[in-house]
């Protein structure tokens, strides 16, 4: 069936192709690591890229597991884009997702007028991704229901979507349609993933990066001006690492350390300073780090502890 006379494909191309913009396709691990650092400002271990690509070669979904703020979502999106050469789709999960919300449903008025036909069908993200041959990042899979997880597994396993109302089966055309799932096992308010689900995915664990890597990440992600000294970055990382080991509820991720530096830089810029000083860092700290009232005291004590000499 060519594009001209397939209504659904036409609809997909009209709407979703705007999001799935073309970029370069890179399937070499070393090159991908370089591009991720240069273009996406992401520092990703080659081992992770290799494992993700190897799973994609076998058509397996990958599950990124780790604490918040370790770059799971961003890295996932970037890898999907590099793999398929097109920007992937993001599917943030919620409890009430079902096939109508991710595959497609029928426009109620049109369906009443002309019945359940291809004209009244509105394709959604998952079907669009399969037709356009791009990747999908399913964010926070633990928030979804068991039924949705099973639906997803079936689609990924067989690489096809059945729409019984239309009596049609959509099959994936290339290897671009891949799925990365993210989840944070430490989050209490979420569902557990079943063993059956975990057995079908390739599980990759994310953790906070070591000091040197995190420093590198801060360097490439923060502004060039006003400049910040190595010593201050060390202090920031020391505080962050202390907090990660403490009992606070919301532990700071790499995300937070970068935002901290950026916020300090912005404050310095507003004061027309050329170099970030300790007071800028301190000023940025409390408002950025404490997300819950219970944690405030502990965070304040850690900060005053680390910055005691300044």
């Amino acid at each position: 069936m060519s594009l001209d006379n397939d209504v659904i494909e036409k609809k997909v191309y009209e709407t979703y192709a705007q999001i799935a913009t073309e970029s370069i396709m890179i399937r070499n691990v070393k090159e991908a690591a370089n591009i991720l650092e240069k273009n996406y400002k992401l520092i990703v271990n080659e081992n992770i890229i290799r494992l993700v690509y190897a799973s994609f070669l076998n058509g397996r979904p990958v599950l990124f597991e780790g604490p918040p703020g370790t770059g799971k979502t961003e890295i996932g999106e970037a890898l999907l884009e590099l793999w398929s050469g097109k920007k992937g789709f993001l599917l943030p999960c919620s409890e009430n997702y079902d096939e109508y919300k991710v595959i497609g449903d029928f426009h109620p008025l049109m369906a009443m007028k002309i019945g359940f036909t291809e004209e009244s069908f509105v394709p959604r993200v998952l079907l669009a991704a399969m037709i356009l041959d791009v990747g999908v990042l399913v964010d926070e899979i633990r928030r979804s229901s068991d039924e949705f997880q099973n639906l997803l597994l079936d689609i990924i396993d067989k690489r096809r979507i059945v729409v019984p109302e239309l009596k049609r089966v959509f099959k994936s055309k290339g290897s671009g349609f891949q799925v990365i799932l993210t989840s944070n096992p430490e989050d209490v308010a979420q569902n557990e993933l079943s063993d059956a689900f975990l057995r079908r995915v390739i599980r990759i664990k994310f953790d906070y990066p070591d000091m040197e890597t995190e420093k590198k990440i801060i360097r490439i992600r923060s502004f060039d001006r006003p400049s910040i000294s190595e010593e201050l970055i060390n202090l920031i990382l020391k505080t962050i690492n202390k907090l990660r080991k403490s009992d606070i509820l919301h532990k700071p991720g790499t995300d937070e350390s970068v935002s901290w530096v950026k916020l300090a830089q912005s404050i310095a810029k507003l004061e027309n300073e050329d170099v970030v000083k300790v007071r800028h860092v301190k000023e940025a700290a409390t408002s950025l780090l404490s997300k819950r009232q219970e944690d405030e005291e502990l965070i304040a004590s850690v900060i005053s502890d680390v910055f005691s000499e300044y």
Partner: protein
Amino acid sequence: MMSFQNIDLEIAEKYVPIIVNNLRNKGVKVGVRESILVLKIFESYLLLDNKKSISSDQFEKILISVIAKNDYEEEIIKKALQELFFGKEDYSNEIYLASERFKNKLIDKNKLSGQQLGDFYKLMAIGGLVKRGKYYRTIDKEKLDQIINNISLDQKTLFKEKLNSILKKLSPEEYIKLLNSDLFYDNLNSLNLDKLIKIAEFLSKKHYNKPLNKVKEIIKEKISNNNLKGENEKLWKTLSSIGILDKDLQKALVIREPSLSKKSKLDISEFNNLNDNDFYNEKQRILLNYAKLSDNENLLNDFLNKIELKNLWLLNKSPIGGEKGKLINAAIYSSKALKEAIEYAESGYEGRKDMSNYYLQKSNELLQELDNKVSIGKINKIETKFFNNNVLKILESLEKGEIQGIKDIDLAIYVDLLRSIYHRSDDIKRRKIIISANKFLTHLIYMNGFKPIPIKKKYSVRPGRLMVKESVINIIRNKEDFLVYKRNVRTKQIGLALDISSSMYKYSSWALSVASIFIHNISRLVLFSTKAISYDKIRKNDVIKILLTVDFNGYTDITRALEQFNDKKFNKIVIITDLKQTVRNEDPSIKANELVRKGIKLLFLVPSDVDKELINKIRNNGGCVKLVNNPEQLAKELIKLLR
């Protein structure tokens, strides 16, 4: 990390099945799908990097990513890999040490014993010995070194197999010589029952208790796994003649051959706690046999006194006739009705409900024909009728999805029912269930005198509500000159730790019902398995909700659970557990001792079949351990325990 530098496809193809098998033995669920996927991903790695092999770290990462479903399995995989690849070095070390012992010596095998003899057999297995007349000596040093340095993975297994086959052939007398070497315990499993019995005989004569217990354990295992028919009686005779036929062995033998129950003189109550699912056939046969043995009325009376009513469903029909036989049959039908009702609660399968109703009808029909006075053992007409009423109520509540009005059934069964109804209900119904559970438990605890109890007090003190009836009796009949007031005795708030590891699964309804007795007094609830989750300042309804929804899995880490009470906010802590610590952490008794020294009272509530050694260990360290048969009995004693 592993000792292999690089792993190519050939090695991977060879070892993935071995590793997968190893993991399966350790309890990790790995399917064929995963092992194929590991190899596929392996190939993709080679393709992506255009190489012929990958590093061992990468190999480990692939295995973990594909197979591990959580952090514990990750650890198990890491350990299995280390064993597999590191084990090689350990083994060559072992052999090296053995060869050093015998270097340049003429060896007289008959004079060796213990570790020396063990080393001798190890060298023999790798072909490191030659026979010179009566004596042995090690082979050429260079050759021996070469063998030791080149022990590879498969050779290691091969050598171990060879060693095993050598040891298997030894006579019991020769094997006993190995007593103080590592080989003695390692290879006991491969010996046959006859040899084991002979070894046990020897050990029991010499009073070597530690190895004897180990041998007994293996004999017990062999007896329960083995399907030799007709040999049980012979075995019974041999074991009892050498004096090692203790209660456990007897039990194992009776489970295999119920007809031995006559010889054993074991009480039927020993078998009340056998798990229904695992020992369905065995339990039925044992009960039938006991029932058969109780051929006169006195014995039958005794039998029916000892067996729990809920276990009666295992019998098919009464062994005696007449009025009493009819009564027994009615009770059997009632028990079957309850069993079906519970099955219905668990499975939601309508057929079970119909069966339960059918049995109830049968039981009631039989009861109608009987006189009120007929009774045998614990069974009588009125109680059986009452029992039937309760089953009917259970069925009704299951249909409506809310439990109300069932008050005289076992607490454990009640908790089980609540859990399954809760599981199948929507949110509104769940709220109702929590409220009705709360009511029921409060009633139970009140009835057993746990919460408010009346205490006699003199007139001048007015601590609570006046109790008119008691006061009148007191003044007129007892001729005392004071009024009686009711006073609420409050017990203090406690911390409760509940073991939710997989080993507790078989005690789950026991544990939950025991925990539910404390609902009024819990202000910190700690659920522990491999991890420990602590709920602080928790309310009654939340406790009930947790008890209704908690799942049993993971390893047991009692020490970690005790650590949750380090802050000394509670001076009484109740721990519900089977005491079997299955993770490598500090010994729980040490931690318990630490807490006791801080002035905290520890009360361990354990099921009645827990290992005595573990209990003594805790008791010696200052913790109080109480064996709890049923929660109702506990409720009665609770006030003493908590004051």
